[in-house]
């Protein structure tokens, strides 16, 4: 089974990371910023697993699993923050949440 080699996966993951970065930088809703962060983390996972296959070692997959756990934790805290913002009637807009700005 000779499919695309690892460079194809890296280029795809670079495009995916760019899409996620654009989402974080362009969108102002914290929910969509979190979703875009997921895209970025997953593009990093794709690179890790691509190189794990390329080198024939499982360690990259282990790292990808750890990244998944960190992403799940980050989503829990992020969504908790969004719910707390919503309950205190704060605007759900990352440009308007400036009360900690120096």
């Amino acid at each position: 089974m000779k499919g695309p080699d690892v460079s194809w996966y890296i280029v795809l993951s670079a495009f995916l990371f760019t899409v996620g970065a654009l989402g974080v930088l362009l969108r102002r809703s914290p929910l969509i910023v979190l979703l875009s962060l997921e895209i970025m983390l997953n593009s990093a996972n794709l690179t890790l697993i691509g190189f794990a296959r390329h080198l024939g070692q499982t360690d990259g997959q282990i790292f990808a699993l750890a990244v998944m756990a960190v992403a799940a934790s980050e989503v829990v805290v992020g969504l908790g923050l969004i719910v707390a913002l919503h309950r205190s009637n704060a605007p759900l807009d990352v440009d308007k949440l400036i009360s900690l700005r120096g």
Partner: protein
Amino acid sequence: MGNVLVWAIWIVAALGCLGSGIAVISFSNPFYSAIALIGNLASLAVLFLLLSAEFVAAAQVLVYAGAVMVMFVFVIAYIGSDADAPFVGGPSWQALAAVIAAGAILVDVVVAIGLKAGGRLSDQADVDGFFGGPYEVGQVFLTDHLLAFEITSIVLLVAAVGGVILGSEARKGAAR
């Protein structure tokens, strides 16, 4: 024949991945964005299968498409119509800088791949049938990377406690 099939699956999964990623960042309703992200994660799981990472692909579908996205959809349903975030504002300096920065990352990676690693990345290591299966992943995870495994469990515990504290603080604030 097998080669053509692998390429066809790769192209379909890659296009699905990029298309649903762009859909995530362009819908104004976060609910549609979350649904599009499920498509993104599913196509990534297909790519992981092509890279013979069966266990990670299964975990991807279970953890992300199962648990994380259900959490997202619950929160979006809880917040309701406040969650709608139309794409406001025309071209601003902020948006222009964002596009330039994102494009710079892309060009960086693609140029680095093209210049530095072009020829050497094509010879792939041979792997046996166990590669990426639960047996091998579990063996490596619980021997070589035991510390990472334990730290992951602590990170998850801290996140769960943090989520509960955030929720109860918010409830106190609402009652006040």
